[in-house]
Protein backbone atom coordinates (compact mmCIF):
# COMPACT_ATOMS: atom_id res chain seq x y z
CA UNK A 1 0.00 0.00 0.00
CA UNK A 2 2.87 2.33 0.84
CA UNK A 3 6.26 1.91 -0.76
CA UNK A 4 9.42 3.92 -0.13
CA UNK A 5 12.12 3.37 -2.74
CA UNK A 6 15.52 4.82 -1.93
CA UNK A 7 13.91 7.85 -0.36
CA UNK A 8 16.21 10.66 0.73
CA UNK A 9 15.16 13.81 2.51
CA UNK A 10 17.34 16.75 3.48
CA UNK A 11 16.52 20.06 5.09
CA UNK A 12 19.20 22.30 3.68
CA UNK A 13 22.51 20.77 4.71
CA UNK A 14 20.89 18.35 7.17
CA UNK A 15 20.18 14.89 5.77
CA UNK A 16 17.34 13.23 7.67
CA UNK A 17 16.50 10.25 5.46
CA UNK A 18 19.09 8.52 3.35
CA UNK A 19 18.19 5.77 0.90
CA UNK A 20 15.17 4.62 2.89
CA UNK A 21 13.33 1.49 1.68
CA UNK A 22 10.25 -0.12 3.13
CA UNK A 23 6.76 -1.25 2.21
CA UNK A 24 3.50 -1.46 4.10
CA UNK A 25 0.98 -4.00 2.79
CA UNK A 26 -2.73 -3.18 2.41
CA UNK A 27 -4.54 -3.45 5.73
CA UNK A 28 -1.34 -3.77 7.67
CA UNK A 29 -0.66 -1.87 10.91
CA UNK A 30 2.97 -0.84 10.96
CA UNK A 31 4.58 1.05 13.81
CA UNK A 32 7.72 3.10 13.51
CA UNK A 33 9.89 3.45 16.57
CA UNK A 34 13.21 5.19 16.98
CA UNK A 35 15.04 7.93 18.86
CA UNK A 36 13.86 11.53 18.93
CA UNK A 37 14.92 13.54 15.90
CA UNK A 38 15.58 10.43 13.83
CA UNK A 39 12.99 11.41 11.20
CA UNK A 40 9.83 9.48 12.05
CA UNK A 41 7.57 12.49 11.72
CA UNK A 42 9.31 13.37 8.48
CA UNK A 43 8.37 9.97 7.03
CA UNK A 44 4.69 10.52 7.84
CA UNK A 45 4.79 14.07 6.52
CA UNK A 46 6.25 12.82 3.24
CA UNK A 47 3.36 10.39 2.87
CA UNK A 48 0.87 13.17 3.68
CA UNK A 49 2.61 15.36 1.04
CA UNK A 50 3.34 17.98 3.69
CA UNK A 51 6.97 17.58 2.66
CA UNK A 52 8.54 16.58 -0.65
CA UNK A 53 11.26 13.98 -1.12
CA UNK A 54 14.77 15.12 -1.97
CA UNK A 55 15.44 11.87 -3.84
CA UNK A 56 13.80 8.52 -4.40
CA UNK A 57 10.17 7.62 -5.04
CA UNK A 58 7.10 7.06 -2.88
CA UNK A 59 4.04 5.16 -4.10
CA UNK A 60 0.70 4.76 -2.36
CA UNK A 61 -1.83 2.15 -3.45
CA UNK A 62 0.24 1.45 -6.55
CA UNK A 63 0.17 5.09 -7.65
CA UNK A 64 3.13 7.41 -7.63
CA UNK A 65 2.86 9.99 -4.88
CA UNK A 66 6.10 11.91 -5.08
CA UNK A 67 6.22 11.58 -8.86
CA UNK A 68 3.97 11.14 -11.86
CA UNK A 69 4.29 9.75 -15.33
CA UNK A 70 4.37 12.19 -18.19
CA UNK A 71 5.24 11.21 -21.73
CA UNK A 72 6.53 7.84 -20.53
CA UNK A 73 8.95 9.48 -18.11
CA UNK A 74 8.85 9.85 -14.37
CA UNK A 75 8.74 13.49 -13.29
CA UNK A 76 8.08 15.26 -10.01
CA UNK A 77 4.43 15.25 -9.07
CA UNK A 78 2.67 18.57 -9.40
CA UNK A 79 0.08 19.86 -6.95
CA UNK A 80 -2.80 18.60 -9.06
CA UNK A 81 -1.49 15.05 -9.11
CA UNK A 82 -0.79 15.05 -5.39
CA UNK A 83 -4.25 16.42 -4.68
CA UNK A 84 -5.72 13.30 -6.27
CA UNK A 85 -3.52 10.75 -4.52
CA UNK A 86 -3.79 12.61 -1.21
CA UNK A 87 -7.52 11.90 -0.99
CA UNK A 88 -6.73 8.31 -0.07
CA UNK A 89 -4.56 9.34 2.87
CA UNK A 90 -5.50 10.73 6.25
CA UNK A 91 -3.47 11.90 9.20
CA UNK A 92 -4.01 12.40 12.92
CA UNK A 93 -1.65 14.90 14.51
CA UNK A 94 -0.05 15.12 17.91
CA UNK A 95 -1.69 18.52 18.47
CA UNK A 96 -5.13 17.45 17.12
CA UNK A 97 -5.36 20.51 14.83
CA UNK A 98 -9.13 20.70 14.92
CA UNK A 99 -10.56 23.83 13.32
CA UNK A 100 -11.39 26.03 16.33
CA UNK A 101 -13.74 28.24 14.35
CA UNK A 102 -16.06 25.32 13.56
CA UNK A 103 -18.26 23.22 15.77
CA UNK A 104 -17.53 19.50 16.02
CA UNK A 105 -20.15 18.67 13.40
CA UNK A 106 -18.71 21.05 10.83
CA UNK A 107 -15.19 19.80 11.53
CA UNK A 108 -16.46 16.38 10.47
CA UNK A 109 -18.56 17.38 7.47
CA UNK A 110 -16.62 20.18 5.78
CA UNK A 111 -14.22 17.97 3.84
CA UNK A 112 -16.64 15.12 3.00
CA UNK A 113 -19.04 17.68 1.51
CA UNK A 114 -16.39 19.74 -0.32
CA UNK A 115 -13.96 17.04 -1.34
CA UNK A 116 -15.94 13.80 -1.58
CA UNK A 117 -19.02 15.59 -2.88
CA UNK A 118 -21.37 14.11 -0.30
CA UNK A 119 -24.68 15.78 0.42
CA UNK A 120 -24.83 17.63 3.71
CA UNK A 121 -27.42 15.20 5.10
CA UNK A 122 -25.32 12.20 4.14
CA UNK A 123 -22.19 13.73 5.64
CA UNK A 124 -23.99 14.60 8.87
CA UNK A 125 -25.40 11.11 9.22
CA UNK A 126 -21.93 9.65 8.77
CA UNK A 127 -20.53 12.19 11.24
CA UNK A 128 -23.05 11.09 13.88
CA UNK A 129 -22.11 7.46 13.36
CA UNK A 130 -18.44 8.32 13.77
CA UNK A 131 -19.10 10.38 16.89
CA UNK A 132 -20.95 7.37 18.27
CA UNK A 133 -17.94 5.24 17.47
CA UNK A 134 -15.56 7.57 19.30
CA UNK A 135 -18.01 7.97 22.17
CA UNK A 136 -18.82 11.64 21.72
CA UNK A 137 -22.33 11.71 20.29
CA UNK A 138 -23.29 14.36 22.85
CA UNK A 139 -20.65 16.80 21.55
CA UNK A 140 -22.03 17.44 18.07
CA UNK A 141 -22.59 21.13 18.78
CA UNK A 142 -19.56 21.73 20.97
CA UNK A 143 -16.67 23.92 19.93
CA UNK A 144 -13.23 22.25 20.07
CA UNK A 145 -12.18 24.64 22.84
CA UNK A 146 -14.92 23.18 25.05
CA UNK A 147 -13.45 19.66 24.81
CA UNK A 148 -10.68 17.97 26.77
CA UNK A 149 -7.52 16.95 24.93
CA UNK A 150 -8.68 13.36 24.78
CA UNK A 151 -12.04 14.38 23.39
CA UNK A 152 -10.41 16.65 20.82
CA UNK A 153 -8.19 13.83 19.67
CA UNK A 154 -11.22 11.52 19.34
CA UNK A 155 -12.91 14.14 17.18
CA UNK A 156 -9.72 14.42 15.11
CA UNK A 157 -9.74 10.66 14.61
CA UNK A 158 -13.41 10.76 13.59
CA UNK A 159 -12.65 13.65 11.23
CA UNK A 160 -9.91 11.64 9.52
CA UNK A 161 -12.18 8.59 9.25
CA UNK A 162 -14.96 10.67 7.71
CA UNK A 163 -12.77 10.97 4.61
CA UNK A 164 -12.78 7.16 4.22
CA UNK A 165 -9.00 6.97 3.86
CA UNK A 166 -7.19 3.86 2.65
CA UNK A 167 -4.16 4.93 4.67
CA UNK A 168 -4.17 6.53 8.09
CA UNK A 169 -1.04 8.14 9.53
CA UNK A 170 -0.76 8.52 13.29
CA UNK A 171 1.98 10.76 14.68
CA UNK A 172 2.33 10.35 18.44
CA UNK A 173 -1.37 10.95 18.80
CA UNK A 174 -1.36 10.51 22.57
CA UNK A 175 1.80 12.47 23.42
CA UNK A 176 -0.05 15.71 24.10
CA UNK A 177 -2.67 14.06 26.32
CA UNK A 178 -2.92 13.92 30.08
CA UNK A 179 -1.83 10.44 31.21
CA UNK A 180 -5.31 9.36 32.29
CA UNK A 181 -6.71 10.06 28.81
CA UNK A 182 -4.12 8.05 26.87
CA UNK A 183 -5.57 4.57 27.40
CA UNK A 184 -9.01 5.51 26.07
CA UNK A 185 -7.67 6.93 22.83
CA UNK A 186 -5.36 3.94 22.31
CA UNK A 187 -8.25 1.51 22.90
CA UNK A 188 -10.28 3.40 20.33
CA UNK A 189 -7.48 3.17 17.77
CA UNK A 190 -7.04 -0.51 18.44
CA UNK A 191 -10.75 -1.02 17.88
CA UNK A 192 -10.62 0.86 14.58
CA UNK A 193 -7.56 -1.05 13.44
CA UNK A 194 -9.29 -4.36 14.16
CA UNK A 195 -12.62 -3.53 12.55
CA UNK A 196 -11.55 -1.72 9.38
CA UNK A 197 -9.21 -2.59 6.55
CA UNK A 198 -7.41 0.74 6.73
CA UNK A 199 -3.64 0.60 6.38
CA UNK A 200 -1.92 2.23 9.35
CA UNK A 201 1.49 3.81 9.61
CA UNK A 202 1.97 4.82 13.21
CA UNK A 203 4.64 6.60 15.22
CA UNK A 204 4.35 6.11 18.96
CA UNK A 205 6.28 5.87 22.18
CA UNK A 206 3.55 3.68 23.68
CA UNK A 207 5.39 0.37 23.40
CA UNK A 208 2.58 -1.67 25.00
CA UNK A 209 0.15 -0.37 22.42
CA UNK A 210 2.62 -0.93 19.57
CA UNK A 211 3.17 -4.51 20.65
CA UNK A 212 -0.54 -5.13 21.01
CA UNK A 213 -1.84 -3.68 17.77
CA UNK A 214 0.99 -3.82 15.21
CA UNK A 215 1.48 -6.41 12.53
CA UNK A 216 5.05 -5.19 12.13
CA UNK A 217 7.36 -2.83 13.96
CA UNK A 218 10.21 -0.98 12.28
CA UNK A 219 13.10 0.32 14.31
CA UNK A 220 14.36 3.43 12.61
CA UNK A 221 17.66 5.18 13.20
CA UNK A 222 20.25 7.19 11.30
CA UNK A 223 17.90 7.68 8.35
CA UNK A 224 17.43 3.93 7.81
CA UNK A 225 15.26 1.07 8.98
CA UNK A 226 17.67 -1.03 11.00
CA UNK A 227 15.24 -3.70 12.13
CA UNK A 228 11.86 -4.76 10.81
CA UNK A 229 10.06 -7.59 12.57
CA UNK A 230 6.86 -8.86 14.14
CA UNK A 231 6.22 -7.04 17.44
CA UNK A 232 6.79 -10.07 19.67
CA UNK A 233 10.13 -10.74 18.06
CA UNK A 234 11.28 -7.14 18.03
CA UNK A 235 10.28 -6.38 21.59
CA UNK A 236 11.47 -9.64 23.21
CA UNK A 237 14.51 -10.65 21.23
CA UNK A 238 15.69 -7.90 18.90
CA UNK A 239 18.52 -8.79 16.55
CA UNK A 240 20.25 -5.47 16.83
CA UNK A 241 22.07 -4.04 19.77
CA UNK A 242 20.84 -0.55 18.80
CA UNK A 243 17.21 -1.71 19.08
CA UNK A 244 17.90 -3.34 22.41
CA UNK A 245 19.45 -0.22 23.94
CA UNK A 246 16.68 1.98 22.55
CA UNK A 247 13.96 -0.23 24.05
CA UNK A 248 15.86 -0.34 27.32
CA UNK A 249 16.02 3.46 27.43
CA UNK A 250 12.30 3.80 26.66
CA UNK A 251 11.40 1.30 29.37
CA UNK A 252 13.52 3.09 31.93
CA UNK A 253 11.92 6.42 31.07
CA UNK A 254 8.62 4.76 31.94
Amino acid at each position, binding site marked *: MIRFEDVGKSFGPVTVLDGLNFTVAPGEFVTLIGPSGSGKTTILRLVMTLEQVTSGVITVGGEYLSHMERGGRLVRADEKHQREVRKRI*GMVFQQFNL*FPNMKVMQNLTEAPVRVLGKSRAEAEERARELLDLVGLNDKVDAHPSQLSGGQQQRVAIARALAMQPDVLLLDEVTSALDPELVAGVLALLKDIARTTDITFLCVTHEMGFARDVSDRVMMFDGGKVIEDAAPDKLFSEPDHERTRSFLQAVLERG
Partner: protein
Amino acid sequence: MNDVWQWDYAFEVLPGIVGGGLWMTIKVTVLASILAYVIGLGLALLRRSDLRIVSMVAWAVIEFIRSTPLLVQLFFAFYVLPDIGLLFDPVTTGVVVFGLHYATYAAEVYRAGIEAVPRGQWEAATALSLPRSRTWTKVILPQAIPRVLPALGNYTISMLKETPLLLTIGVLDIVGVAAEEGSQAFRYVEPITIAGVLFLILSYSASLLTRWMERRVGIAR
Protein backbone atom coordinates in the same frame (compact mmCIF):
# COMPACT_ATOMS: atom_id res chain seq x y z
CA MET B 1 -18.69 91.08 20.78
CA ASN B 2 -15.53 90.46 22.76
CA ASP B 3 -16.66 87.81 25.23
CA VAL B 4 -14.32 84.85 25.31
CA TRP B 5 -17.14 82.50 24.40
CA GLN B 6 -20.40 83.54 22.77
CA TRP B 7 -23.18 81.00 23.07
CA ASP B 8 -25.39 82.73 20.49
CA TYR B 9 -22.69 82.48 17.86
CA ALA B 10 -21.83 78.93 18.86
CA PHE B 11 -25.44 77.84 18.33
CA GLU B 12 -25.53 79.71 15.05
CA VAL B 13 -22.59 77.79 13.55
CA LEU B 14 -23.31 74.41 15.15
CA PRO B 15 -25.94 73.17 12.65
CA GLY B 16 -23.66 73.89 9.70
CA ILE B 17 -20.70 72.09 11.25
CA VAL B 18 -22.75 69.08 12.27
CA GLY B 19 -24.95 68.88 9.16
CA GLY B 20 -22.19 69.53 6.64
CA GLY B 21 -18.82 68.81 8.21
CA LEU B 22 -19.61 66.02 10.63
CA TRP B 23 -21.60 64.20 8.01
CA MET B 24 -18.74 64.52 5.51
CA THR B 25 -16.17 63.28 8.05
CA ILE B 26 -18.28 60.23 8.87
CA LYS B 27 -19.10 59.51 5.23
CA VAL B 28 -15.49 59.66 4.06
CA THR B 29 -14.21 57.67 7.04
CA VAL B 30 -16.77 54.89 6.68
CA LEU B 31 -16.48 54.55 2.90
CA ALA B 32 -12.68 54.78 2.91
CA SER B 33 -12.48 52.24 5.77
CA ILE B 34 -14.57 49.72 3.86
CA LEU B 35 -12.38 50.27 0.81
CA ALA B 36 -9.22 49.94 2.93
CA TYR B 37 -10.36 46.71 4.60
CA VAL B 38 -11.34 45.07 1.31
CA ILE B 39 -8.35 46.20 -0.76
CA GLY B 40 -6.04 45.56 2.20
CA LEU B 41 -7.17 41.95 2.36
CA GLY B 42 -6.68 41.65 -1.39
CA LEU B 43 -3.14 43.05 -1.11
CA ALA B 44 -2.31 40.74 1.79
CA LEU B 45 -3.42 37.71 -0.24
CA LEU B 46 -1.57 38.83 -3.38
CA ARG B 47 1.49 39.39 -1.23
CA ARG B 48 1.38 35.66 -0.38
CA SER B 49 0.91 34.51 -3.96
CA ASP B 50 3.07 31.64 -5.15
CA LEU B 51 3.70 33.62 -8.31
CA ARG B 52 6.75 35.69 -7.49
CA ILE B 53 5.88 38.46 -9.90
CA VAL B 54 2.48 38.93 -8.25
CA SER B 55 3.82 39.02 -4.72
CA MET B 56 6.62 41.39 -5.80
CA VAL B 57 4.16 43.82 -7.34
CA ALA B 58 1.93 43.71 -4.26
CA TRP B 59 4.97 44.33 -2.08
CA ALA B 60 6.09 47.27 -4.22
CA VAL B 61 2.62 48.84 -4.16
CA ILE B 62 2.41 48.49 -0.38
CA GLU B 63 5.87 49.90 0.23
CA PHE B 64 5.42 52.77 -2.21
CA ILE B 65 2.08 53.93 -0.85
CA ARG B 66 3.17 53.51 2.76
CA SER B 67 6.30 55.54 2.35
CA THR B 68 4.79 58.60 0.71
CA PRO B 69 2.68 61.12 2.66
CA LEU B 70 -1.08 61.01 2.37
CA LEU B 71 -1.09 64.68 1.35
CA VAL B 72 1.18 64.00 -1.62
CA GLN B 73 -1.10 61.21 -2.76
CA LEU B 74 -4.11 63.44 -2.36
CA PHE B 75 -2.52 66.19 -4.48
CA PHE B 76 -1.36 63.66 -7.03
CA ALA B 77 -4.85 62.24 -7.47
CA PHE B 78 -6.44 65.66 -7.51
CA TYR B 79 -4.06 67.67 -9.68
CA VAL B 80 -2.10 65.16 -11.75
CA LEU B 81 -4.56 62.42 -12.65
CA PRO B 82 -7.00 64.82 -14.41
CA ASP B 83 -4.16 65.75 -16.78
CA ILE B 84 -4.14 62.19 -18.03
CA GLY B 85 -7.90 62.13 -18.32
CA LEU B 86 -8.86 60.67 -14.95
CA LEU B 87 -11.24 63.14 -13.45
CA PHE B 88 -13.21 62.34 -10.30
CA ASP B 89 -15.19 64.62 -8.04
CA PRO B 90 -13.26 65.70 -4.92
CA VAL B 91 -15.18 63.49 -2.47
CA THR B 92 -14.60 60.37 -4.57
CA THR B 93 -10.94 61.31 -4.91
CA GLY B 94 -10.70 61.70 -1.14
CA VAL B 95 -12.38 58.38 -0.40
CA VAL B 96 -10.27 56.49 -2.93
CA VAL B 97 -6.97 58.04 -1.82
CA PHE B 98 -7.70 57.53 1.88
CA GLY B 99 -8.92 53.99 1.18
CA LEU B 100 -5.83 53.04 -0.83
CA HIS B 101 -3.45 54.64 1.64
CA TYR B 102 -4.91 52.82 4.61
CA ALA B 103 -5.31 49.60 2.60
CA THR B 104 -1.54 49.26 2.74
CA TYR B 105 -1.58 49.46 6.53
CA ALA B 106 -4.52 47.07 6.65
CA ALA B 107 -2.56 44.67 4.43
CA GLU B 108 0.20 44.50 7.04
CA VAL B 109 -2.35 43.94 9.79
CA TYR B 110 -3.97 41.10 7.85
CA ARG B 111 -0.57 39.62 7.10
CA ALA B 112 0.27 39.45 10.80
CA GLY B 113 -3.16 37.95 11.54
CA ILE B 114 -2.77 35.30 8.85
CA GLU B 115 0.71 34.38 10.05
CA ALA B 116 -0.60 34.01 13.59
CA VAL B 117 -2.81 31.10 12.52
CA PRO B 118 -0.84 27.97 13.52
CA ARG B 119 0.78 25.95 10.75
CA GLY B 120 -1.10 22.89 12.01
CA GLN B 121 -4.31 24.41 10.66
CA TRP B 122 -2.89 24.46 7.13
CA GLU B 123 -1.60 20.94 7.57
CA ALA B 124 -4.92 19.61 8.84
CA ALA B 125 -6.62 21.20 5.83
CA THR B 126 -4.13 19.51 3.51
CA ALA B 127 -4.61 16.18 5.28
CA LEU B 128 -8.34 16.52 4.57
CA SER B 129 -7.62 17.45 0.94
CA LEU B 130 -9.49 20.74 1.29
CA PRO B 131 -8.87 22.92 -1.76
CA ARG B 132 -6.72 26.03 -1.21
CA SER B 133 -9.61 28.43 -1.74
CA ARG B 134 -11.72 26.57 0.78
CA THR B 135 -8.87 26.50 3.27
CA TRP B 136 -8.63 30.28 3.03
CA THR B 137 -12.33 31.02 3.32
CA LYS B 138 -13.33 28.38 5.88
CA VAL B 139 -10.25 27.82 8.00
CA ILE B 140 -7.62 30.55 7.83
CA LEU B 141 -9.50 33.82 7.38
CA PRO B 142 -12.23 33.06 9.94
CA GLN B 143 -9.44 32.65 12.47
CA ALA B 144 -7.27 35.53 11.28
CA ILE B 145 -9.86 38.27 10.78
CA PRO B 146 -11.47 38.44 14.24
CA ARG B 147 -8.03 38.88 15.74
CA VAL B 148 -7.18 41.83 13.54
CA LEU B 149 -10.46 43.74 13.84
CA PRO B 150 -9.23 45.84 16.79
CA ALA B 151 -6.07 46.81 14.90
CA LEU B 152 -8.14 47.72 11.84
CA GLY B 153 -10.42 49.78 14.11
CA ASN B 154 -7.42 51.78 15.26
CA TYR B 155 -6.59 52.66 11.68
CA THR B 156 -10.14 53.87 11.18
CA ILE B 157 -9.62 56.20 14.13
CA SER B 158 -6.40 57.51 12.57
CA MET B 159 -8.20 58.03 9.32
CA LEU B 160 -10.97 59.91 11.06
CA LYS B 161 -8.46 62.36 12.49
CA GLU B 162 -6.87 62.92 9.10
CA THR B 163 -10.04 63.96 7.29
CA PRO B 164 -9.16 67.68 7.75
CA LEU B 165 -6.53 67.10 5.04
CA LEU B 166 -9.42 66.92 2.59
CA LEU B 167 -9.68 70.67 2.93
CA THR B 168 -6.72 70.88 0.56
CA ILE B 169 -8.75 69.46 -2.29
CA GLY B 170 -11.85 71.43 -1.44
CA VAL B 171 -13.79 68.85 0.55
CA LEU B 172 -15.05 70.38 3.76
CA ASP B 173 -15.04 68.04 6.77
CA ILE B 174 -15.72 69.16 10.34
CA VAL B 175 -12.67 71.40 10.45
CA GLY B 176 -13.23 72.62 6.91
CA VAL B 177 -16.76 73.80 7.64
CA ALA B 178 -15.71 75.25 10.98
CA ALA B 179 -12.90 77.24 9.39
CA GLU B 180 -15.22 78.53 6.74
CA GLU B 181 -17.80 79.65 9.30
CA GLY B 182 -14.99 81.31 11.21
CA SER B 183 -13.70 83.19 8.21
CA GLN B 184 -17.14 84.58 7.46
CA ALA B 185 -17.61 86.05 10.94
CA PHE B 186 -13.92 86.69 11.62
CA ARG B 187 -14.37 84.71 14.80
CA TYR B 188 -12.86 81.28 15.19
CA VAL B 189 -13.06 80.37 18.88
CA GLU B 190 -16.50 78.79 18.79
CA PRO B 191 -16.39 76.90 15.46
CA ILE B 192 -12.91 75.50 16.01
CA THR B 193 -13.72 74.51 19.59
CA ILE B 194 -16.87 72.78 18.38
CA ALA B 195 -14.83 70.96 15.74
CA GLY B 196 -12.40 69.76 18.39
CA VAL B 197 -15.19 68.54 20.65
CA LEU B 198 -16.89 66.71 17.77
CA PHE B 199 -13.64 64.93 16.93
CA LEU B 200 -13.20 64.02 20.56
CA ILE B 201 -16.68 62.49 20.68
CA LEU B 202 -16.14 60.60 17.41
CA SER B 203 -12.71 59.21 18.30
CA TYR B 204 -13.77 58.30 21.77
CA SER B 205 -16.85 56.38 20.65
CA ALA B 206 -14.81 54.67 17.96
CA SER B 207 -12.20 53.60 20.48
CA LEU B 208 -14.90 52.30 22.83
CA LEU B 209 -16.18 50.23 19.92
CA THR B 210 -12.68 48.98 19.19
CA ARG B 211 -12.11 48.02 22.81
CA TRP B 212 -15.44 46.22 22.86
CA MET B 213 -14.30 44.27 19.80
CA GLU B 214 -11.00 43.50 21.51
CA ARG B 215 -12.87 41.97 24.42
CA ARG B 216 -15.20 40.02 22.15
CA VAL B 217 -12.24 38.60 20.27
CA GLY B 218 -10.57 37.74 23.56
CA ILE B 219 -13.64 35.78 24.64
CA ALA B 220 -13.99 34.05 21.30
CA ARG B 221 -10.54 32.48 21.69
